[in-house]
């Protein structure tokens, strides 16, 4: 017995946990090409649309100069708009990906193959979590950066160097980077954990299992007690946290400007969110161990 075990362990090459993790992440990106195709496609579309716009608008920009106060938002608006569009489309990708992450492999039975690999369930689940939490925000930022750079080039061709004066690009890029990493990645951690849990748990229809119970709880509370604490709490988990108090809705251009990193990480709600995410993930790992193909 012992000799067999030692020969087995001697013959299997040791792969460090970090290496297993990075290859698991690569596997996810290979299998789900929408992770990078969607932001790239949206970015290309934005650049094409901007090119059309510049060709149409260039004469007008020269003939009708606005006063500087109005010019500033008018110049900045398309850039903000582009980053919002990219953020939104990758958010849809993130939700879709995490709902499908642990369910799809069970449905097409590839889970049997992946489980035969010497990669633990914890590493697999963490690799799947890292896609919406880390990879997609970083990728979105990279694509947003490139898109806005091309938009800037097109704008310089169309409107001349006056554009440069009105655009705080460095500030905007930092704001976008912070928003994507801190908010889409870190603050929404409990949501990503919850989607992964639903994905690991559901035998059918994980999207419904992840969305309908919260909806039902909110409506049930409203009808039973006439209150809406749960809905408010969910809303806070969804949009709060940028500036601390829940009434600070970050869905404006202002969200790209506030970059108080220290205050964000000292927020107690961030850490309770992490705790929730950890619980969801632990459950997802347990479920992946126990559940076979559907």
């Amino acid at each position, binding site marked *: 017995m012992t000799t067999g075990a030692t020969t087995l362990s001697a013959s299997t090459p040791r792969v460090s946990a970090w290496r297993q993790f990075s290859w698991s992440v690569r596997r996810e990106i290979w299998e789900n090409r929408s992770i990078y195709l969607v932001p790239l496609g949206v970015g290309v579309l*934005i650049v094409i649309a901007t090119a059309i716009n510049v060709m149409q608008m260039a004469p007008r920009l020269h003939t009708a100069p606005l006063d500087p106060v109005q010019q500033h938002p008018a110049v900045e608006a398309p850039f903000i*708009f582009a980053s919002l569009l990219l953020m939104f489309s990758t958010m849809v990708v993130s939700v879709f990906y995490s709902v499908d992450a642990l369910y799809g492999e069970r*449905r097409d039975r590839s889970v049997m193959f992946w489980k035969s690999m010497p990669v633990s369930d914890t590493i697999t689940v963490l690799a799947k979590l890292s896609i919406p939490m880390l990879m997609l925000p970083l990728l979105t930022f990279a694509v947003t950066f490139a898109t806005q750079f091309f938009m800037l080039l097109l704008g310089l061709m169309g409107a001349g160097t006056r554009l440069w004066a009105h655009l705080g690009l460095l500030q905007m890029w930092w704001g976008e980077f912070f928003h994507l990493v801190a908010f889409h990645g870190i603050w929404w951690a409990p949501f990503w954990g919850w989607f992964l849990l639903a994905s690991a748990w559901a035998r059918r229809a994980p999207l419904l299992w992840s969305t*309908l119970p919260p*909806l039902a709880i909110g*409506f049930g509370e409203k*009808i039973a007690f006439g209150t809406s604490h749960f809905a408010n709490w969910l809303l806070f988990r969804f949009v709060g946290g940028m500036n601390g108090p829940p009434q600070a809705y970050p869905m404006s251009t202002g969200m790209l400007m506030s970059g108080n990193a220290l205050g964000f990480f000292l927020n107690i709600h961030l850490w309770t969110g992490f705790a929730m995410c950890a619980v969801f993930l632990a459950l997802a790992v347990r479920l992946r161990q126990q559940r076979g193909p559907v």
Partner: protein
Amino acid sequence: MNTQSSTPESSAIPPIVPVVISPVRLLYWSIQRELWENRSIYIAPLAAASFLLVGFLIGIIALPGHRMATVLSLPPAKQQAAIALPYEIAEGLIMATAFFVGLYYCLDALHGERRDRSILFWKSLPVSDLTTVLSKASVPFLLILLSFAITVATQFIMLLLSSAVTLGSGLSAAVVWRQLSLSRLWLMLLYHVVTVHVLWYAPLYGWLLLVSAWARRAAFLWAVLPLLAIGFVEKIAFNTTHFAHWLAYRFSGPEAFNFSASPGVSAEAGGMSMNMITSLNPGKFFSTPGLWIGLAVAAAFLYAAARLRRYRGPI
């Protein structure tokens, strides 16, 4: 090669006469199959309804008489709104659940069977692709009608429960029965369900089925992102929002324009559905060209989905 080896055997066996099954029967059993395979179709609205009933029961027992007393002290106009509110919430939740389940079902209908390879089995049956697609397309409509029935039952039980508790706490239940005209609520809901959810949303379901038949991966993204991208690109390139307006029109339905005739009244009464009856106008609805264009588009989508199903195998 194959034919040569099989000829002696086939000459020995008497020719197999295929049993002719009527198309209606095929369609019926295909729909049965969908209901068996996707139990969320009826479990989700039923679960929502039972959840609501439990919540409603807690609401009227945990706060005995208290809320009813405050409601009865209100002036009649507000009283009506306060009494009708839980019924409207129930209606909204059940119909929203059914709507989401319908959307999700359509997106998964032709994609899921390719993904788990069961399509190979289903294609081996003597059921045409068109019949299969039609049976799948009829499921969201059946689901909506089913959830209408569930809503009616839920609201009826809620009415009985609330009158029992009101009587038990020594108050007269007559106010509840007088102020709450459930039959009117049901008539409006039926009208809304048939016109908006069944007829007006037909192209929506058709589109989802088409994407489901077409997409190799990520059907959800293929269904949503192209529409979004068109709208945003139009906004950036030409600074117009024709596509977004058109999409909003397809979602809100022609009824939204009828409601806007009396916005003040509906906001005042605390529930637009109570006043919807005044704007019930089937003649106008059926003479909207958008409806018939939408139905034609839905038929085209379904035909395309049936064609695609013929040529696409498992993924």
